[in-house]
Each structure stands twice: as C-alpha cells, then as structure tokens.
C-alpha cells in the first residue's frame, strides 16, 4: 500500500500519472484462405479506459487471454497501440517516435513474469543491472558499478555477486535482479507483470514485501498485474478486472471485494481457493460453464454473456458502458446491465438466453 508522505508530486494538479483512453490493440491473424480478404484480428485489448494516480498501486486482474499483459506492454510502449490515447505525466505518448520515447522510458519500467526468460543468460548480473545507465549515457564506469551495487543491496542481493551469471541465482533472486534493473533510473512508474507467479510460495512473500518497501522508499507508482487475487488484494489500492480485452469493473480494492457488482468479478472471487477449510466449506461457489470465447470473434454485446449466470436478452445486443451502477461512488465502475446487489446470491441465477455455455451444460445435465 502507499505511504502518502513519500508520494511524489508528479502532477501537482492531482491529475493521474497515467491515463488510457479507448486503447485498442489488435493483432492480425493469418487467414487460411488464399485470398486475404477476410483478415481476422485478435482483439487483445479492445477499448480500455484506465487511470493510475501518482503513488498508488493499480491491480490489473484477469485470466488468460483477457489482455492484461498486452495492455501492460502497450502502456510501456513495447507495442504500438492500434488506436486510442495514452497520456503519461500529462504528455501524449501514444505516437512518439523511438527517439522521443527515450527520455520517457526512464520514467516507466517493467518487471516480467519469467525470472528465467527475462535476463540474458550470457551477461553478468552487474552489467544487466547497469544496462539502463549505459543506454542512457549516465555516469562513468566506476559510478555505474557503485550505483549497481547500491541497487543490489536495496533489493536484498549481495553486491559481491556483481560478476555472476543469472544461472547462479535462484528464481526469487533473479526476480530481484529484474527489480534492480527496473529501478536503476529511478522511474516514476513500475509495471509488474505477474512478478511472483513463477515463484514458490515462501519466496513470493519476500518479493512482495520488497516491492512494497521500495514503493514507500522511492514513491513509486505501480501497475500490478496478476491472476492471483489474494496477492492483488494485498498490494493494490485500486483494482481493474479485465475480460476478453475490456475492463469490466474497477474499484478501490476493498470495495471490489465487498461490493462486487460485475458477475465475472464475482465468479473470479468465488473461484479463488482460500487456504482456510471453514471458509472453503461454507462458501457460495459459482462455477462458470465453458471456456473464455475466442478473442478473434468476441461475442456481441457484453462479452461475458455466453457464460454469465445472469444473462438477459439485452446483454446480447448492448455493450454495457463502464460506469458507476446502483448508486456507487465515482471510484467504482462496472460494465454490466444487470449488476449484482449486495448480498445477491448469484448461484441461484439462471441465464435467460439460449445457446450460452451455461444453458448448453444445463440442458445436457437435464438430459442425463
């Protein structure tokens, strides 16, 4: 969580540090036909509006294929967006050239999920962490070495291991190397793409604590991507839930968990395994039927209607806007035409449209 005393006055007017407006990222799919007439696209990110305030942690959750990693790379301009606008620290960075992006890259850094794939195995750790300095032409060789060793200490690594190769470190330590590299230029914002998913449970906690401590110490803003809701709940101030390329709900973290509005969010929370037998035994479980639809041909209207226990005819036709519902405060938005009331038992809902996964499954169960 954030410490208000150390948040930077990145934008003294109270503007968000990062703003995304209707961002879309489509990837073309090679068509199998000889004529390229019907080009298909993977709608990886399909119209996302988001804001991140300075000093806060925005958690971005969703399952495989929801577009969160693609979105992260769009924010870091590792991909060019297909359309939409990205504003960072008051500046429109959507279509900046590589050269123009250079100084901005010092402000936005990323740490990746795979501690084994994100470090060049042939380079020594000291030079990996020192890369940002040499790329941006900062400091003499000795200066860099000193700063790198400082960073290694900050992230809990032994500075004497400066000349070792990544293979000589464990997964958790490699993740720390990635963090040190990302922090080298004192960025304003860190995008963490599943930073602890590949780590053992006992190491996850170490790295999470490290990230939280660094946030306090350096006044960092985080976009924290994870599929693990319990981790997200622990680190985030606000959370955005994604499904099939779109944000379906955003709220302050406690509100998301206590006043869930979107049926998908509710299913996600319900599916979350809780390490507590009493709670596990007594919980209302909502088990979604079927799988996530293909992002090449997303369903019409609300993307979630094919699996939603509360689907109604209008859900098929209308794309629900992302806005506060049922009298919620402006900080809590949901994209749903039939949002959940507090205490509503979704396990009793049945969809009122045909040909959804849920209906097919129920039909087959009935026939048995």
């Amino acid at each position, binding site marked *: 969580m954030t410490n208000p005393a150390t948040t930077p006055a990145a934008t003294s007017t109270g503007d968000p540090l990062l703003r995304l407006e209707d961002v879309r990222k489509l990837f073309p799919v090679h068509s199998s036909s000889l004529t390229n007439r019907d080009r298909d696209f993977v709608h990886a990110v399909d119209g996302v509006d988001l804001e991140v305030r300075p000093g806060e942690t925005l958690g971005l959750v969703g399952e*495989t294929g929801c577009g969160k990693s693609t979105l992260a790379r769009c924010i870091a301009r590792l991909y060019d967006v297909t359309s939409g606008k990205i504003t960072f620290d008051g500046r429109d960075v959507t279509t900046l050239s590589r050269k123009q992006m250079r100084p901005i890259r010092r402000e936005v850094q990323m740490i990746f999920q795979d501690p084994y794939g994100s470090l060049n195995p042939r380079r020594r750790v000291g030079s990996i962490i020192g890369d940002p300095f040499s790329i941006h032409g900062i400091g003499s060789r000795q200066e860099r070495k000193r700063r790198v060793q400082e960073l290694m200490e900050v992230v809990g690594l032994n500075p004497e291991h400066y000349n070792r190769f990544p293979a000589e470190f464990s997964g958790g330590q490699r993740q720390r190397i990635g963090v040190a590299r990302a922090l080298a230029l004192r960025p304003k914002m860190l995008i963490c793409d599943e930073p602890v998913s590949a780590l053992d*449970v006992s190491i996850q*906690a170490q790295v*999470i604590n490290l990230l939280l401590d660094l946030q306090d110490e350096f006044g960092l803003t985080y976009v924290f991507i994870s599929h693990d809701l319990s*981790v997200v709940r622990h680190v985030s101030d606000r959370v955005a839930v994604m499904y099939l390329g779109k944000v379906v709900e955003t709220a302050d973290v406690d509100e998301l968990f206590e006043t869930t509005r979107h049926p998908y969010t509710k299913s996600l929370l319900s*599916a*979350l395994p809780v*390490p507590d*037998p009493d709670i596990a035994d007594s919980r209302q*479980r909502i088990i979604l039927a079927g799988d996530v639809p293909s992002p090449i041909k997303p369903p019409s209207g609300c993307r979630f209607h094919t699996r939603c226990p509360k689907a109604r005819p209008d859900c098929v036709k209308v794309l629900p806007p992302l806005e506060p519902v049922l009298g919620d405060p402006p900080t809590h938005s949901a994209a749903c035409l039939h949002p959940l009331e507090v205490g509503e038992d979704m396990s009793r809902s049945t969809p009122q449209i045909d040909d959804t996964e849920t209906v097919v499954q129920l039909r087959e169960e009935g026939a048995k």
Partner: protein
Amino acid sequence: MSLLEVKNLRVSFNTPDGVVNAVRGLSFDLNKGKTLAIVGESGSGKSVSTQTITGLTRGAKVTGEAYFDGVDLLTADASYLRKVRGSQIGMIFQDPLSSLHPYYRVGWQIVEMIRAHESVSKQAARDRAIELLNLVGIPRADTRIDDFPHQFSGGMRQRVMIAMAMSLSPSLLIADEPTTALDVTVQAQVLGVMRTMQEQFGTAIIIITHDLGVVAQMTDDVVVMYAGAAMETASRREIFYNQHHPYTEGLLQSLPTQGETSRLTPISGTPPSLISLPPGCPFEPRCRYAFDKCREETPPLREVFADPDHHSACWLSTDQDERVRLREESYAREEATA
C-alpha cells in the same frame, strides 16, 4: 482400510554433481475413498515420490516399501506395474498438453487405454469414452470425442485427462499439480470434476500441490514435504488450524490473507540443496525456533498434541499449549522489534 501404505521410501539419483537425495524416508497411509494432499514447494520430492511408487522414475536408486492392495509396487515386475497403472491407479499431470498425444484423436486415446486393459469391443469402449467425457463435463461429447487435443482448451484437456484416468474405474487417482497451469475459474471446474469422480466411483485421490487453497477445499489428510522428507502429517483441519511444524506454520503465515494489509511474513532464506544437506533438521537454517539440537540431530516424525493422526518431524515440544505459547512469543517478539 488401507489402500496404499508407503514405508520409508528413499529415492536418490546419481548426477555429475553428486548424489541427489530426492526422497529421504517418506511414509504415509491412504485409505479407500479418501483424499490425501502432498504439499511442498519445488524440490520437496513430492512428484518424485508418487512417480517412483508407480514405477515411472528411471535410473533411480529406490529403497523402502509401497504396498498397494497388499502388493509392494517397489519390488513388483514391470508387467505387473503396467497392469496396475491405468486400471487400478490413474494418473493426471500438470500439463495436459504434454500428456495427450497430439496426433491422435482424444476418443482414440481413451479407447486405446480401455482396450489395453480389458477385452471389450471398439464400440463398447467408445460408448464408455463418450459417457466419461459427459461425466467430466465436456459439452457435445459425442462429437468432441473425435477432436484432437489442440482443439480443446487447457481446462477441457485436463478434464479429458481425468476421463482417461478414470476410464477403468481405478481405486486410486494420483493428480500431480492438476490445476497449476489453469486459470482460477477453470481450476474450480476441474476440482469439481475430480470430486464428482470420487463420489461416483469411490476413488481415493492423492493430490500433489503447492497451493494451500486447493488443499483447504479438497482434502481429508495432508502430508507436508520439505527437502525430500515429510515434515508434518495430519488431518486438513489440524494442518490449517493447529500446525506443529515451523515450516507448515511459515507457509501459512506467508500467504496473503483476506483483507489484511500488514507486511507479509515470509520464510527467510531459500530451500537447501539436495546434494549437500547439512546434518540435523533440513529446515533448521530457516527456522525461527531453531536451537542446537536441531543442527545436530535430525528429528524423526513423532506424534504430537496427543493425537495419533498428527505427526511432526520437529524437536519442539509436543504439548499443544506449550507449542502455541512458543508461537505467540516468537511473533510478538518480531512485532516488537519491527
């Protein structure tokens, strides 16, 4: 009634770097129709133990006993094991894409499995396969039976694996990290299917996982492994609400719990090398309660809290009140110095 009795299982591998002692004296019992979770992180030996029991590890030096239905699998010959695997012990693994043959239709793979063990006609086997696919919740099973593995999503593939593993109604299903590669909502589906199978067929399940959330909902009993040995064995509730072993305690303490925003309490340090384990307790270097004896003598698994079903490999007091007191003291001390 005991279905599987493992006694003092030891598995080691010769490697260029030295002998890796992957499993160092594991013992547990599993009764018919019950679910046992083997919990541990990477390198704990949890996968190697079950793979060795079913005869799937090669080049390993194995000692100990594993009685399945009265027969010691560790000394059984290859043809007996082949018979037992599939018909009496079903297995599903973490990555269903690598467990299913990509070139053969899914129905063919299930039918082949059935006909390898039983003399039934192709049609009868196919009908059984469709029934099983229905049972595991594959929609339109009668058409999907002729699809290839790549035409299914991860969750569906795992369900196909379960169907295949259950096709001969085995009395034991070993599921090695069955949901780790899956999304949370799909995980819930797959665990639900496993429970259904258990209810329908009375199958005992061994579920190997590092996910304590899965353990909390699925199991009757738990074995916690670390560095190739069992640290604690107890019932589900005892493991979560009344742990004895500091490693179990550390694991639970390091999880982000609902709604708490204070700093997490990780276990300091890293797991040991299985080649050069120090003498004494393997967890000692990372243990907040460690004292001299821990370094010198390896604690055996012994009964704690006067509960014959609760064992812990630790030198700390076996008295419940004393143990709780030690825990409270240790965490209070930590809070005070934080």
